[in-house]
């Protein structure tokens, strides 16, 4: 009987090592260890053994069973690995074929610029203020120190609805509305659509966008204006950007400045984009004119403020290298999908 067990072990081990598939292995498991298997048959014959022999043979039978099980398991692992490998080999696909995408839509380049600017100022504690596009000329002009006879009204060709109502030519009337309705400290930016009677060409559009900023509080200085614009310009144009302020004139600020940033293409060396000057004019700014503060019921002896404004189209065109403003309004989907 002992010999019989030894033979079972030897045969089993041989057959296991020769098995070519997990299926064959399963067959061997049944053949040797199943209910009607060889080993089971031997154990069933143990009743005929003597009391002395029985534990010895029993132990041997267990050792044989364990050995076979171990062999089966090991061979099983190897075979299944091999089988998986074979299967995967048949499943190769052409991974250069196009992906199945759910296409997302694109934000308009103007929105992207407006959002970026908003984000910078929101981070600095500003609110976003809005106002009507069809506006009283009082808010667009008079309250901003531009009376009817002021030559500045000639600079802006205005669309009129009637004597008193116009399409706003700038986002500055929003500043007036904010100052009328809110006590300092005021920190707002006002993005929006504005209108001027300019015929359409590569750099003009009768409808365009501005973003203005306004800060009013006690002790606000021109140095603060400079510092704020530096942070803004570095955030938009890169941390090495320099700014330069040139004296200028706006009716609603005094002192007034035009703000140039060092050219973000050539870093100030002079190129096509900056027309060889090394600087690009990007923002108009200044300290809020005391008359404007008074118009809004804010005492200029107590409070001061600064304001700045910029054209969104100009920034977008510079940022995305767009050479014709009309593209921004055509909405050709092939254009929009580039951003």
């Amino acid at each position, binding site marked *: 009987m002992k010999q019989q067990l030894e033979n079972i072990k030897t045969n089993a081990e041989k057959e296991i090592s020769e098995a070519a598939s997990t299926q064959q292995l399963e067959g061997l498991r049944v053949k040797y260890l199943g209910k009607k298997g060889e080993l089971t048959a031997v154990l069933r014959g143990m009743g005929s053994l003597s009391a002395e022999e029985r534990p010895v043979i029993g132990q041997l039978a267990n050792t044989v069973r364990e050995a076979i099980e171990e062999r089966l398991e090991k061979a099983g692992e190897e075979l299944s690995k091999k089988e998986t490998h074979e299967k995967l080999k048949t499943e190769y696909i052409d991974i250069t074929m196009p992906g199945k995408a759910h296409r997302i839509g694109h934000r308009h380049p103007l929105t992207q610029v407006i959002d970026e600017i908003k984000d910078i100022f929101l*981070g600095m504690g*500003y609110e976003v203020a809005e106002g009507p596009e069809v506006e009283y000329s009082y808010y667009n002009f008079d309250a901003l120190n531009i009376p009817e*006879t002021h*030559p500045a009204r000639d600079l802006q060709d205005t669309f009129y609805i009637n004597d008193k109502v116009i399409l706003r030519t700038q986002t500055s009337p929003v500043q007036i509305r904010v100052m009328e309705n809110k006590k300092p400290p005021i920190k707002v930016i006002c993005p929006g659509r504005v209108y001027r009677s300019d015929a359409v060409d590569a750099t003009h559009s009768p*409808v365009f966008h501005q973003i203005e900023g306004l800060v009013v509080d006690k002790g606000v200085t*021109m*140095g603060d204006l400079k510092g704020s614009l530096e*942070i803004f310009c570095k955030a938009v144009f890169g941390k090495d950007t320099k700014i*330069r302020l040139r004296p200028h004139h706006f009716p609603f600020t005094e002192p007034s400045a035009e703000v140039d940033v060092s050219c973000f293409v050539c870093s100030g060396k002079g190129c096509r984009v900056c027309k060889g000057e090394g600087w690009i004019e990007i923002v108009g700014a200044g300290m809020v004119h005391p008359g404007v503060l008074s118009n809004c019921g804010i005492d200029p002896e107590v409070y001061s403020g600064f304001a700045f404004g910029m054209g969104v189209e100009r920034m977008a065109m510079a940022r995305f290298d767009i050479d014709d403003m009309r593209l921004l309004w055509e909405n050709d*989907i092939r254009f929009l999908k580039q951003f």
Partner: protein
Amino acid sequence: MKVPLSWLKEYVNIDITPKELAEALTMSGSKVEGIEELGSGISNVAAGKIISLEKHPDADKLQVAKVDAGSGVLQIVTGADNIKEGDIIPVAKEGAALPGGKTIGRGVLRGVESVGMMCSIQELGLTRYDYPEAPEHGIFILDPGVEPGTDIKEVLGLDDVVIEFEITPNRPDCLSIIGIARETAVTLRRELKAENIMQADKCRSSLAGRTQGSGVSIEIKNPELCPRYIGRVVRNIRIEPSPEWMRKRLRAAGIRPINNLVDVTNYVMLELGQPMHAFDFDRIEGKKIIVRTAKEGEKITTLDEQERKLNPEMLVIADAVKPVAVAGVMGGANSEVSRDTKNILLEAANFNGGSVRLTAKAMGFRTESSSRFEKGLDIENVSRAMDRAVELLEAMGAGEAEKDDVDCCPVKWEPRVLKFRPDRINALLGTRIDKEYMVKVMRELGLLVDEKGMTVTIPSYRMDIEGEADLAEEVARFYGYNNIESSLFSGETTQGGKTLKQKVEDMCKYAMNAQGLSEAYTYSFVSPKTLDMINIAESDSLRNSVKVMNPLSEEQSMMRTTTIPSMLEVLARNYSRRIEEVRLFELGYVYTPKALPITELPEEKEVITLGMYGSGEDFYTLKGVVDELFRYLGIRNYEMKRASDPVFHPGRSAQIYISGRKAGIIGEIHPDVLENYNIDCRAYIGVVEFRPILENVNLVHKYKHLPKFPAVDRDIAMVVKDEITVGEIESVIKSCAGDILEELTMFDVYKGGQIPQGSKSVAYSMSFRAADRTLTDEEVNQIMHEVIKELKGRINAELRG
């Protein structure tokens, strides 16, 4: 404003390059637009002396000249016949360049070698306005005193540099050489050498003015529109070209020389910034000047030979009988100086800027004069300009001025006096500039600083300085804006941030982008015809619109009352470019008048407009986008009902109701409308109002426990009549399945085959689940039984399979 550097140097010592000067002035507030080198196209051209002139041996019409060009003798063959031995002429030497890119070499003409060329004025880029003595055809013969070999640019004043400035409207004083010189002097910390022309005559004739002078009387009827008027008679006028130096300067400054009278008035305007006018005095009836507003119905023919209607808002200069000039804008033809003029009346006056501006605007034209007056000019400059003009005319022998002028000055002008508070200036700028520096800058600018009383008196030429902030700007400009240290305000911290409305707008855009819609931007004004193009009835309220009074064109004359035409136009443009699939949206406004005519601002209603076409699109893809938008925003209380709108396909459009209120419409565009836009495929547009979205968003999310018990699934298919909508089927199922129906998904709609005509098969999968227990089959069977019974009873549904 074009400023010849040589002219500027008369008043300020300048020892830096034009580029450095331009940079310095730009940074102190006089922005330089450009630097032009006169004569930059000319090189290697010099004055030459003709030392011999002989006939060409082989050609009748040619001569051979030997020319001493300073650097040697050149032999030049010429066809000109206006030259003789001893003449000094411009000679372009071998290798010379002339304006227009022409270059000069050597050649052989009929066997005789010729090196270089003698030049006419045209060849030097000049005209006979610049040199009236030059022949129209032939060589330009120079002054005999010119040394041979002298560079021609030096001889003709083409060696100058002209700087062009952009002058802001608040600084009319800088529309003059003297104004720019003053800025230059302060910027460069140099002395302004202008005593001779800056002796300001105060309104010297006192309040009433000396209105009676030799031969002319002046009366101002509207002193608020004309606070000062000076007239001076100049007799025995000899009209001839002005001297060369004056012509050179005018030309460099961009003004064409005409004759001595015109040139002097232009010269004074450039030098001092005061426009002047000359009348033919013998044509002034009654020898009387009356400054008054025009009478109703009066007309005048201006110097440009246009007859212009006048109205009582306009200020004119009249004689005893008729208007002879539109004040500050243009003179009249009836008193124009001509070749026969013997005596002139020179005018220097101060007019109200606003009045001149409105008059010029009403007449539809601006002149050099009106564009200066409208900015508000210096009242004291008037007498300065008159004196300067007379001085120049007399010096050039153009006539003899009467001993006195008539200075009519009915308004007493008082200079503005401002408080001088250095601390406030520093507080505004964020600087620590010392008082002495401020005083120095202001004094150099001509402001009178009283350090005891701490006041600043503003000179008449700086009426733009109105208050302390203006003083701060003057100080800051020369201190240097870029020397102000950057800082960040130290005030109260503000929270900032977006409002709910702004956040929801962002979410809408995000939801659109996420579903594949790209963002469009369209104009807010459209053509009124667009309403016809989209089938809007004549009586429809969409026709009540805000109209632009002065549109660029009819196409942009109406503030849109609907965004559908804007979107259709965009779809049409893409379609015409053969783009196969388009998904777009716009977050924009429509403008609805509250009353007509407009008395208050219109309502600006924000709407989301969706537009799409392409093979994958149908009504349901559009509807899906809106459904998903609402789901994302937590809006559940909405429904869609069949719409009846002329823009849309009657069977494929739906009105959106949020909280029972109309909030938009979606659908396939009516084929008639599509045809108007040349779109040859089905296209889909949706418009959803933003306000109801904002009012119904639900952004508060609370966690619901994930299911612990298994779901039981059942499928059901039924045949119903075509008219029965899916909505009706679903409401029947939901009403009897109750809360444990977790999901109801339609997976098939089928017509034809075994399904009788006029009916359809609709199939659903249903998923039941209870939160607190495992549902038993019996329980679900019971419900299904109920559902089937109700479907049959209420909508006559036949259960299939």
